[in-house]
């Protein structure tokens, strides 16, 4: 029993790490007034280039940096279209998602002759924070997770601070809520949005590296598996507030863990695999239904007065 709990816990942490990173990235653009639909593509392209750089150089750090660079470039491209050219963010986002999907598949075929996946022992994985204290609780529940998990936790506190406690964060939120106010103060809101999208690229880059260099050590076709959109759902539900976002990321990590555990059970594998997708719809439904009820209650109370 104890064993099962610690297994589920460790899968939960492992799989909520990329979700948290992507959601943090999306949080920046969300507050800056752009719903980033291209995160799925950012995640996928960084997962691919993390594997490429890690494979070529033999260094996990180079892999992570390569993933970040790729994601930042794609994120800037998205920002250029959405912010500078004022194109529809959904249309460009989807075009870039499909671009990431076909580009990674295409490059995989050319570079590695792989069909739908590429793995090699030469890919240097992102390691764990290996600490043995001899105290089971600390060893199983605090230490020995991916280094990127700890990076994500640090980034979580840093970004909460950045958004709510600094002048950059204030400008970021004003860029989202009242861009005219910024313009009249002589600050260009699209510069702020560009900065937000660079931050988003960095976070998604880390997330991609966690996926392809830690959670599994390979690149597989479309391996981002909708996580960019699950993260989008998390941002929508939490309305971009960090603490609820963290909680919901952990919740989705738990769903992932349940999905993995159920795959061991005597069930057709398709049903456990559905769990994260069904749950994201259900959680959205529960949250929006509650909010709607709250709204109508408020309306009623006003009309009664």
């Amino acid at each position, binding site marked *: 029993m104890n064993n099962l709990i610690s297994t589920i816990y460790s899968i939960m942490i492992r799989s909520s790490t990329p979700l948290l990173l992507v959601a943090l990235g999306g949080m920046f653009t969300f507050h800056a007034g752009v719903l980033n639909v291209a995160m799925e593509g950012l995640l996928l392209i960084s997962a691919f280039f993390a594997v490429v750089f890690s494979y070529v150089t033999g260094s996990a750090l180079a892999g992570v940096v390569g993933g970040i660079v790729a994601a930042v470039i794609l994120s800037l491209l998205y920002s250029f279209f959405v912010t500078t*050219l004022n194109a529809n963010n959904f249309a460009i986002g989807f075009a870039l998602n499909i671009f990431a999907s076909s*580009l990674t598949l*295409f490059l995989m075929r050319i570079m590695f002759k792989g069909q739908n996946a590429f793995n090699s022992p030469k890919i240097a994985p992102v390691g764990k924070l290996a600490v043995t204290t001899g105290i089971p609780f600390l060893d199983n529940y605090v230490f020995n997770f991916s280094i990127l998990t700890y990076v994500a936790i640090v980034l979580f506190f840093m970004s909460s601070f950045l958004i709510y406690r600094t002048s950059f964060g204030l400008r970021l939120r004003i860029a989202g809520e009242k861009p005219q106010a910024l313009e009249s103060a002589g600050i260009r809101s699209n510069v702020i949005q560009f900065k937000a999208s660079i931050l988003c690229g960095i976070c998604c880059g880390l997330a991609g590296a966690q996926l392809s260099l830690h959670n599994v050590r390979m690149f597989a076709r479309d391996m981002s598996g909708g996580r960019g959109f699950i993260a989008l759902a998390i941002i929508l539900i939490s309305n971009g507030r960090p603490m609820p976002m963290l909680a919901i990321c952990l919740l989705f990590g738990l769903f992932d863990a349940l999905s993995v555990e159920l795959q061991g059970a005597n069930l057709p594998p398709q049903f456990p695999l559905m769990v994260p997708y069904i749950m994201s719809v259900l959680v959205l439904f529960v949250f*929006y239904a509650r909010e709607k009820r709250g709204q109508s209650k408020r309306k009623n109370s006003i009309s009664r007065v």
Partner: protein
Amino acid sequence: MSSMTRAGGYAKKIGLTVLFVGLIVVVWAAVLFLAGANPVLSFVYIFKGALVGTSNLFSTLDLMVPMMLLALAVAIPGWAGVWNIGGEGQFLLGALAAAWVGISIDLGNPFLDVFLALFAAMVAGLVWSSWAGYLKVKLQINEIVTTLMANYIATLLVSYLVNYPLKEAGSSWAQTAYIKRPFQLHHLVGGSQFSLTFFISTGIVLVFFLLEKRTRLGYELTMIGSNERLSYLGGISIAAKRMVAMLLGGAVAGLAGGLVVLGNTYRMKEGISPGYGFTGLLVCLLADNDPILIILVSFLFAVLQSGSLNLQLFSDIPVEISGVLQVVLILFVAAFRIMIRKKER
């Protein structure tokens, strides 16, 4: 505006377009070159593989069938400002429904059989699109997230069904048995799978072209999409119209699945769609929700896709190059459109 300046405007537009097409060809050539191919030869292979010879030409036309309908499945809700990203899942369930009818029912009349199977496909797509549409109009839940999740759920559901309950007995592949003979639409041109489905799908696109331009529903949908507030003031029930648009989109996507089963594969199998849903989305983005443009863009994309198969045969370039070329085209067109719009202002 006098006719002189209008003619001048058109000349300018045509000039710009020619310039733009030239630019795209150069960029495509650059992509092919970077991939290690000879661009001129590659274009020749693509052109020959897609259009030269009756079997190639009609295979290309046949490829347009799912593309056109899945683009239309994005376009109809798109008129009303709703994004239907769920075409892939609606397609799969439509295909499954048609295959199930084709395996288990026979009315004794080929015409009725085909009609019933296609009807089932439409209903399946419609039902699958309905919940995302309902959540959108009732609770304002972002439809991009829900329809995308719906794709993953549908893919897994179909995978389960063709792996377990509906799997052909004794087969080692994840596929159903063949549909019965009366359901199988004949291939009209030797060497290709071109069949009646091409005319059905083109007809559907034209019907929706008329619906958009000539009917009250079409007018109201495009009005909601272009100015939600004004249409609210004008007394259009936005939620109901958006729901209708979503359901129509789902039905069209489901129909595409039915047509592919009845005209091409004659059975349901895992991996029946090589990402038609997303190709359809790209087509629709490029065609800017316009049915006539959807037909033209589908043709262009079908040429690229079936041409790159030929390219793969004669060079080291994998067939996935077509996806890269398509998205590059879309990004350039998006930038180009915005430039033109800014100039007109």
